[in-house]
């Protein structure tokens, strides 16, 4: 597929652009600035749409395509808006044998989105993780910085998700 246009999702006068500009110019050297600038931009905007790539390119001199190459190389960068809460379900070996697939299936069923997608209300983005590094607690799910351990009983999951719905309200 080849695109011919793209929609802006961030206004030109968004104050976060100024923050990003001062961040970029606080670095004396432009060498290796691409990755750092993209990280800061993702912190500020939550994702990296074309207009942010164009802004960084203009400020750093790094071509848009090269920045996009970095963005699409690292799975930590997103080009689409992310949900307010990041769900990560560990699919590492230990979690997997202890039933991670059931956990994932339950979350998919509850939220109605597949892995890598964001719920229509922009509340949750669902991701499968390689290993969260706490195999003793398998199967494990993380929502933002909260760890949910030993999720043998998947029927608990809707209630866990509901807490974040309430928090947001």
């Amino acid at each position, binding site marked *: 597929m*080849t695109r*011919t246009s*793209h929609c802006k999702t961030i206004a030109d006068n968004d104050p976060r652009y100024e923050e990003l500009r001062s961040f970029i110019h606080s670095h004396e050297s432009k060498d290796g600035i691409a990755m750092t600038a993209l990280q800061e931009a993702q912190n500020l905007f939550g994702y990296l749409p*074309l207009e942010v*790539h164009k802004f960084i390119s203009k400020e750093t001199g790094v071509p848009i*395509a*090269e920045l*996009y190459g970095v963005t699409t190389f690292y799975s930590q960068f997103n*080009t689409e808006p992310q949900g307010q809460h990041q769900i990560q379900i560990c699919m590492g070996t230990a979690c997997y044998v202890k039933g991670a697939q059931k956990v994932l299936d339950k979350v998919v069923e509850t939220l109605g989105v597949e892995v890598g997608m964001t719920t229509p209300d922009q509340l949750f983005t669902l991701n499968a993780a390689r290993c969260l590094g706490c195999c003793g607690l398998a199967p494990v799910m993380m929502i933002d910085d909260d760890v949910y351990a030993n999720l043998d009983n998947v029927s608990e999951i809707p209630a866990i998700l509901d807490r974040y719905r309430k928090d947001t309200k």
Partner: protein
Amino acid sequence: MSEETKKITITINDRELKADPGETVLQVAHRSGINIPHLCYLKDINEIAACRLCVAEVEVNGRRMRGLPATCVLKVEDGMVVRTNTKAVRKAVRFNLELILANHDMNCPTCVRNGTCELQKLARERGVEGVRFGGIKRAVTIDELSPSIVRDSSKCILCGRCVSTCEKIQGLGVLAFTNRGFNTEVGPAFDFSMRDVNCIYCGQCIEACPVAALRERRYIDDVWDAIDDPDKVVVVQTAPAVRASLGEEFGYPIGTPVTGKMTAALRHIGFDYVFDTNFAADLTISEEATELLHRITTGGVLPMITSCSPGWIRYCEMYHPDFLPNLSTCKSPQNMMGAIIKSYFADVMDIDPETIVVVSIMPCTSKKSEAIREEMEVDGLRDVDYSLTTRELGDMIKQAGIDFDTLEDEHPDSVLGDYTGAAVIFGTTGGVMEAALRTAADVLTGEDLPSFEYEAVRGMEGIKQASVTVPLGGVPTELKVVVCSSVKHAGEVLDAVRKGELSCHFIEVMACPGGCIHGGGQSYVSSTERMSTDPRLARADALYSEDERQVLRKSHQNPELIELIDKFLGAPNSDVAHKYLHTHYAPRPFYAQKEFGECDD
């Protein structure tokens, strides 16, 4: 440095060879007649050890290096022992070729690079007789939206030569490796078409591509249709640089001038009239030198910058719109020629201009986009209907079954067929400037000056400066000029002018490094040939030698041009000239987006 003074001795395939510190094994092997296969390596541009075809068995100080190192990035060391023809190396090369082919479309017989493809050649040479790996191939993108360049990911081998060329030579970075692992694809950002990004269509990426993943958009069949149509009068014009490269399509050494054979071939193909864009190059000088003198004497915008190179124009429109008033308003020779063919020539020959189809043969892929620019028409008639590359002309000659070797030299048709030596050198960096200086100096002094070769603007340096003293209004005045090739260098020059670090009257810019002789439409020169030859030098020589062979070597002395001015234009820069020969420019956005809040998807 002579062989004797080289400081290091290495052994490749049992031959003792002298080498300089800093040389790579691949370089030493190549100049010693030992072929090491390579695909991603492009001298001075892309040295990234990605394709793993240049591998060898290597020992240093009697110790075997681990695995098979890539010789393109392996610096020589004293006493190094290299073996390129062992069972392990042969097996690895074949295996790696198979892996590359496993993700390649392999439609060789119907591919435009059949015969010039570096991958195809290596597969044959290295004895790959089948590919054992089936399975999934990468998702395919074929971007055919641009008028100049087609990007076809089904043929891409991810060597990165285009990526490095666009970034290092042109400073643009249109293409990059996007995504990751199996899904890696070379392309612009956010899946944009090359039509809608910062691409200037120079085609240097096509010249760099070892396969047909990047290729020109071809219009050969449209031209055949026009030739076959009895109601059409098909008129062809050939740019100066084409004659210096077309021979390569038929196996002649790089830079063999084939002007006469080319003209004969065009007649055999069936074009009704054969002209040389050189005529319009002389016309351009007449218009542009007049425009320059007018700007200087009336306080117009300076420095004036040449406008012959459509890649440069796109670049200026995209990156330096503040310099658009500095661009000469002259159309390029391609379009001047088209406009004159459909007006003056049609009138003289009593041909209905509506029936005329103008085909241009160009060393350039960007000319295709110039031809379709909205403003490049007069009274509803397109200046140029189809623009083909040197390579496409080579293919047309072959399709017509013409034996190029045995063709006798012929001359272009009259009315618009004369040209001077000044026009021929338009095809190389500095050529437009030199041609302009030859005419400007004569016009200002009112003499036919005997000394008119301006060595300072010749040569392959990216940025050249010169000055010439001419009488302006009776006062000897220093006319300062700058010549640059590649848009990267053009950008540097403009930055210097903007900052006030550089002041001059006239700047020549050609978008390709070395000028049109190294344009993106010229015959392919493989990465192996590029290791020992700079194709630009031989091609530039071809043009300078043709210049020397001309009796008339100053544009304003072209007899048919004098007649054109006399009978049609009235004078250079006249109202008639402006109607047919001049144009305008506008800032050009890239990666365009709908504004925030205007989106519905």
